[in-house]
Each structure stands twice: as C-alpha cells, then as structure tokens.
C-alpha cells in the first residue's frame, strides 16, 4: 500500500519523547498474564509468518530443500525487473515530491500567524487521509477520466482526450505518486508542523534579531532541525512505497488490463500465489520485500536516534 502508513506518521508524533526507561516494579507473575495475549499475536502474525516465508522460499513444492532456486526463478522471471523498475521510478518521483513539498508546506503553514487559517489548512491537507486504499484510487479514476473529471479541461489542455490516453504506462509512476501524495502528505505536514513547534521561539527570535528573513530562518534553522523527521518520513515512505499494490491492481481492472496485473512486485507475488499456485515463488518475492522493509526499519531503529531518550 503506497498510502503513507498513518501508523508510521503517528509513531513519529509520539516517539522521541521517551523510551527505554527501566521499569519500576519487581518481577511478577502478573506481567506474564498481562503480556500473554500480545505475545501470542506477535508470535502468530509477526514472527511465525516471517519464518514460514523463509522456509517456503528455500524449499520446493514437495518440501525438499531448494537452495536459492526459488530466488533465481523469480529474479529470472521476465516480469521481475520491469516490476522493480516501475516501483523504483514511482518511488523516486514520490519521495522527491513528498520531501520537498511537505517540508515547504509545513514551514509555510507554520509561518501563518492567523490561528484559524493555519488550523483549517492543516485539516484540509489532512482530510484526504480518510480516503485511503481503494477509495482514494477510485476517486482518482474519476479525476483522471477526462469525460467525468472535475478538471477535464486541464487534462484536455495537456493533450489527454480519454482515460486510456491518461493511463499510458509512461504516466503511471506520476499518477501513483500523485495519488499517494494526495492521501498521505497531509499527515506528514501535521507531523512536521508539530516538529516545527518544538523549535524554541528564542532561537527563531535570535535569528530574526540578527537580521535573518523568513527564508533564511527556514533554510538555516528550521530545516536542519527538521532533518530527523524528514529522514524518518523518507525511510517510512520508501518502505511503504515498495509495497505498491492497490493502485496498479485497481487501475489494471479499471483499464481492462491496459495496465498489466503484474505491474508491481507485490502484484507479481500475488500472481505467483494465486495464478500459478507457486507459493514458494510468492514467498521468495515476499521475503525480498520483507528484507528491504526490515533493513530500512533497522537503519532507523539503530541510526535514527528517535527511540532514545532525549
């Protein structure tokens, strides 16, 4: 799902405040009771599926050890590298737009002194987040269909007369990036806004007294102090973006397969599992994606510093 994970956004909002403080009370039986339900769920839907995917990825259909055969099979699949390049191109466009625009918009909204205006803007930016997943894709199908679109004139101005012309393969990474930006950016703007509030007013005031204008303050003070949050946003969005599924899946369906149903890696894994009944191949692709996600989160946990006490 390319929708920026709201979970991650809110994690950004609360992390950095505390963690890792040693517990106060003594060891007791009650703890195990309180924790047991969650521990069972963690095992069943966190650890075990990951281990089972590892097992499937390294075995063949009969359960015998397969070495790297599944991996070489999926990597050698003629659909694999196109899918990788689709996802990569989409990620580049989306991440650049996200980092640049979210930062600028957050700084601008933060600079607005009229409170109700700033609040309203944040809410307007945030609201599309309610339309995640299939609903937002559906909405954008309308917007991208010149015959129904509210911006049909704009689309025709750009030379698009029909829905099929809009969704030619070359446009797809941009389209997916726009959809993802539309749904996810607002949440990040709210996060960045909160982070900007954390910069002490004295620092800003001192800079202003020294003659810095708004742009210099943004560039020299606010931006460096936001770096941690920007990298958090980048890493989380990168991890989420590799999972691209619902957008191309629905678009493929809506376009009568003008958009192929193996456009992204997750779709390809899905094809392996459900069209080819090749669970080992599906597990191999899932595992590759999982390793990417784990690596990114590990970078963040170890290097990001968000989970240490400030």
């Amino acid at each position, binding site marked *: 799902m390319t929708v920026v994970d*709201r979970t991650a956004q809110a994690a950004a909002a609360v992390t950095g405040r505390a963690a890792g403080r040693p517990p106060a009370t003594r060891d*007791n039986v009650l703890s195990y009771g309180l924790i047991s339900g969650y*521990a069972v769920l963690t095992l069943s839907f966190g650890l075990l*599926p990951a281990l*089972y995917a590892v097992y499937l990825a390294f075995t063949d259909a009969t359960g015998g050890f397969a070495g790297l055969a599944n991996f070489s099979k999926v990597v050698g699949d003629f659909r694999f590298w196109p899918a990788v390049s689709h996802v990569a191109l989409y990620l580049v466009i989306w991440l650049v737009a996200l980092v640049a625009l979210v930062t600028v918009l957050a700084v601008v909204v933060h600079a607005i002194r009229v409170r109700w205006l700033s609040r309203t803007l944040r809410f307007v930016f*945030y609201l599309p987040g309610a339309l995640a997943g*299939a609903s937002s894709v*559906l909405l954008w199908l309308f917007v991208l269909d010149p015959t129904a679109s509210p911006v049909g004139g704009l689309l025709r101005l750009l030379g698009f007369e029909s829905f099929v012309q809009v969704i030619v393969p070359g446009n797809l990474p941009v389209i997916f990036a726009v959809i993802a930006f539309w749904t996810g950016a607002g949440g990040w703007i709210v996060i960045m806004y909160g982070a900007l509030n954390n910069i002490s007013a004295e620092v800003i005031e001192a800079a202003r007294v020294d003659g810095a204008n708004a742009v210099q303050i943004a560039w020299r003070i606010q931006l460096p102090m936001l770096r941690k949050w920007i990298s958090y946003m980048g890493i989380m969005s990168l991890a989420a973006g590799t999972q691209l599924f619902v957008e191309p899946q629905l678009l493929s369906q809506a376009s009568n397969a003008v958009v192929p149903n193996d456009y992204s890696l997750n779709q390809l894994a899905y094809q392996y599992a459900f069209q080819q009944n090749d669970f080992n191949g599906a597990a191999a692709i899932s595992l590759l994606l999982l390793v990417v996600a784990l690596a990114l989160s590990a970078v963040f946990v170890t290097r990001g510093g968000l989970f240490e006490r400030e």
Partner: protein
Amino acid sequence: MNSVPTGSSPAYRPGVSGWSGRTIVAVMVAVFVLFFAVPIVWLLLATTKSARGLSVGNPFAFGSFGELSTNWSRLFGFQDGAVTTWMTNSALYAVGALVITLIVSIPAGYALALTRFRFRRLLLVLTLVVMLIPNTALVLPIFLELNAVGLIGSPLSVILPMSFFPFGVYLTYIYFSTSIPRDLLAAARIDGCREIQVFTRIALPLAAPIVALVAFFSFVQNWNNFFLPFVMLPSSDGYPVQVGLTSLLASTPAFNPSSAGGQSVQLPTLALATVVSVLPVLIVFLVSQRFLVAGMTAGGTKE
C-alpha cells in the same frame, strides 16, 4: 508547480520586498488547497447527479436530491444488497479487531512500561521493528501461514492479523512510561492494592486518552485495509466494502466496457459507493478533528 518556492528559489531571495514573497506563498497555498479539496468536493457533488449530468453539466454544480436518492437505491440494490453485506462485514472486521487490539494492547503496554519480566526487551524490540515495517509486507506470509492451517475465507483470517497492532502497544507503552507518576502506583501498593488492582483500579482509569487514540488508529487502519482481506477472502459474501468496491468497479461500463448489462453501475453510483465506503472513517475524522490536527503532536505544541 513551478511557483513553489524552495529555500533557495531566486524569486524569494532576501531583498525581495515582502509583498511579492507573500503573493508567491499565497498562490502556492491556494494551489494546494485546491489540489487537496477539489477532488473531495467534486466527489460529494457527483453523488447528486445523473450519469448524463455528470459528463455534460458544470462539475461543481449541485444535482438534485432526487438523483441522490436514485443513486442510493441503485447502489444498495446492486447484486441484491451486496453493499449492505460489505458494509456489515467491514464493521464486523474493523470493530472485532479493534476490540481484540484494545483487550490485548493496553495490558501489554502497561506491562512493558511498568513491570519487569523476561523477554521484555526482546518483545519491545520486536514491537518497534514490526511497527516500522509496512503492514502489507507480512500479508502474503500470513496468507501462506493461515493457508497451511486452513483458516482462509473465515472472518478470523482478517480479524486476527488486524488485531496484531504493535503501534497500539507502543503508544500505550509510551503513555504509561511517561504520563503515570510512579509515586501514585507506589502509594496504591502501600495502601494495600494487589498488583492486579494497581492495574485495574489505578492505571486503567487513567488510560482513557490512550485507549481513544489506539482505538482511532486501529479502526481507521482496519476499515481501510485492502490487501489483507483481498488476499484472505475469496468469496464476495465475505468482502469488506473496500474490496467490494473492486466488484462495483468491474461492473462499471465507463471503466470496463465488457461489463455492460443488467447489473451495470453508472458513474454517479460508483461515486456514491466511494463516499459510502469511507463514511465511517470520515465521520471519525471529523469528530476527532481537534485532536488530529493539534493533539496528534501533543507535546510538540509550545506555541
């Protein structure tokens, strides 16, 4: 979008008089307000139009309530009330998972924050790691696992995985380790509270804000989840509304010409379906607007 001033944009350099910079900023904000708001406004208006009105009329004119009710009855008449089934399923899955999440996460967050036990550190690290990986990353592995135990197609195959919500545990953990004074718990113990009573009588009543927050995130995420139910539930009777939308889409001739027939769906009906599918989340968003745009970053509000 060329008008977007980045920090180094020449048009917004120091020395440029205030009004031109302000104009650029105002234009940029206006452009983005339109970008974010226009699709939603248009979608709401589209539900009040006929298929013809949608393609020829002014996109931002209101249709009529008559058309809205026609679209409504067409939508809920689709495949003998499939939409009602899907909405009911969505509610069942989202609320079911939410309830389990709360029952499991709140005690777990408390135990992680304020008690000591073996594997505490391991569980904490696992929570962080799983929380940070996209929740779609584990969908196919979970499918493979549940397929092996024969749970595919059962409501449990979506409710149970969704109720595993490490982020909720993490939020609770942060809350209990920062917001509950330890002295209070110690005082309760001195007054003769047993450990379980410390949790149920002292900590739990103080946890109301975090319960609300976890419930909000869990509900929104569960309701909007597409990939998990799409993979787990093969039969239309079991679809949540997000997956059901794909059935509607497949029956819309405007997007899928091969679908023209008795059960075909017109564009305004599909627009209404989109609105209906997010209505519960939209309501939750509007109700919690205050804490969403201000409180979500509580602790960061030092204006």
